[in-house]
């Protein structure tokens, strides 16, 4: 007997007390939990900004017209000049200036030599302050937002879901997904939080709302 058959047989005999005609649905799952933890009056984008900032990431708001200038300001503030550019990133958003844009495909060694990367996002989650990347247009392969030390992520306000249930329903599990909540961090040394062990040490989120608040 293969181990597969042996394990399945052991499971079945271990569950001898489960009636043969019981189906999973016969085991009730109470779903009294909330679909969203946002209060009715709360603004998704405000909560998102506040919670992203709690992870010591930076959120900058802008409207579509102000986007290139905002990107330029963030990159200048971070001293990031040589940046990976994922396929599908809208070129009209890129500011003019001293920046070198390195389009995909890039191998790992090349990525390691760059200052950072700029991407779009698939979904944001207000209550947890999370951005989700699904490798779609403008987001790049997973390595792109991992190997360089700096990540600037542009997200539109309508991409922000209220809470996890809503966000998961918007995502396609067949794609590789990365949920990012702040920069890479560790608390392994005397529980002192240190940003950036292996992933990017700095995360800038630029939130695009229809009108400047």
């Amino acid at each position, binding site marked *: 007997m293969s181990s597969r058959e042996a394990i399945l047989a052991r499971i079945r005999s271990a569950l001898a007390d489960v009636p043969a005609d019981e189906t999973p649905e016969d085991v009730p*799952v109470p779903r009294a939990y909330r679909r969203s933890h946002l209060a009715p009056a709360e603004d998704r984008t405000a909560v998102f900004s506040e919670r992203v900032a709690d992870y010591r990431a930076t959120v900058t708001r802008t409207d579509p017209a102000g986007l290139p200038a905002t990107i330029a300001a963030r990159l200048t503030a971070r001293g990031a000049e040589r940046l990976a550019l994922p396929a599908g990133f809208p070129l009209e958003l890129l500011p003019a200036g001293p920046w070198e844009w390195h389009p995909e495909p890039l191998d790992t060694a090349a990525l390691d030599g760059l200052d950072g990367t700029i991407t779009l996002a698939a979904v944001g989650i207000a209550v*947890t302050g999370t951005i989700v990347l699904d490798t779609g247009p403008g987001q790049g392969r997973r390595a792109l937002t*991992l190997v360089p030390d700096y990540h600037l992520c542009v997200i539109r306000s309508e991409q922000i879901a209220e809470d996890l*249930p809503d966000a998961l329903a918007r995502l396609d*599990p067949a794609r*590789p997904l990365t949920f990012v909540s702040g920069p890479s961090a560790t*608390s392994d040394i005397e529980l*002192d939080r240190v940003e950036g062990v*292996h992933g990017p040490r700095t995360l800038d989120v630029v939130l695009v709302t229809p009108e400047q608040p």
Partner: protein
Amino acid sequence: MNGRGVVWLGAPSFPVAAKQALADPQLRANLKRATTTIRDKRLAVAAELDDWEALRDAAAAIKKRTARHLDRYLLQLEESVTAAGGTVHWAADAGEANRIVTELVRATGETEVVKIKSMATQEIGLNEHLAVHGITAYETDLAELIVQLGDDRPSHILVPAIHKNRTEIRDLFAAEMAHWGRPAPEGLTDAPRELAEAARRHLREKFLTAKVAVSGANFACADTGTVVIVESEGNGRMCLTLPETLITVMGIEKVLPSWSELEVFLQLLPRSSTGERMNPYTSTFTGTTEGDGPSAFHLVLLDNGRTDTLADRVGRQVLACIRCSACLNVCPVYERTGGHAYGSVYPGPIGAVLTPQLVGPEHAASLPFASTLCGACYEACPVKIDIPRVLTHLRAEVVEAQGGRTAEALALKAAGKVLDSPHLFAAAQKAAALGGKALARKGRIGRLPGPAAGWSDTRDTPAPPAESFRSWWRKNKEDDR
């Protein structure tokens, strides 16, 4: 290790090891600070969700549904992972899992693998097995790196190197890093930032060249075949993304019926574990993706005693554990002894109930007694595992195995009945708090009467708090509103 791993060979029994740990003031200070800090953070973020209890109820029910139909969900998982381009392997025990992984690594022609922190691979002693076969496994989580460089053992589920302070870590990096790859920089101080930077540089050369990675898994969705890994540092993402081959070793209990159930568990896990609304990185992947990440993905489904645990109708609920470590941080026994005393990969309250079940009570006879039955672990557990109930059940088994129907066995059976009923349990806890006060001298109890005597022989037992954890919790939650 014995046939199933889990227990460290030659580790002293809990009472002996705990006595040593209690004599180490530095260890106790480290533990106290760490458990208190994480505990407070956890309470704060759990209190943000006013439906926390409803989420726990849902999680417990989903886990129950999964356990009662485990064969069906595993077959569905196998099918969906295979359809997405992965390969599924079944391992009945530690030996078989180790053989499968070793063969898979050998087939790539590589002699080095990078690893993400994984309790399942610790349980089976994979690194040691690979080493015997000429394959070096590099742990890439910072705490696991500290443990590995020190030829040490993890002492906490979430922060495995919690027993080491920054100076010890600095000395370890300076002395050992060079034997494993890039040496620590000259003049390294004990500032956490500098230590993390040294680890980053040391490991980066491994990440950028590794062809094979080994991971565990937090969850796997049967309907989609999606595997989920929750982490903070990004070492997990490195391992999931850069190598050509990824081998994931997962206990069979980690399967979830569907992708949508993550909406419950991704709310509970980070808040219970690190006390954050969300951990820095969560990665989900389904089989392989052309042009992104490993081109070969292997999922090893590990039994190693889990089906025996499933057969125990009281003990089976332990398989619901999502390894958040919340129960460690609230446990008065763990807080004083640390994880090493448990002599097992799984420390603290969950270790006390999981280890004897995985290896059989005769191999871990003292562990079910490593508890005051204060109930704090049950209150903290996001999937509502009734650890005190399982503890008394296992105690009765141990006692029965050791001498048949003794007075102790009967007393413990009675205790099991009490713990079955929330009302009786609350009443018993109150009684214990009162009784404890009467017995205590200067807040310590000498020798406990009755079944607890064996446990208190070797140490003073802290007096139970004047009020029970339950009443304290209820009051404090009400204060928050």
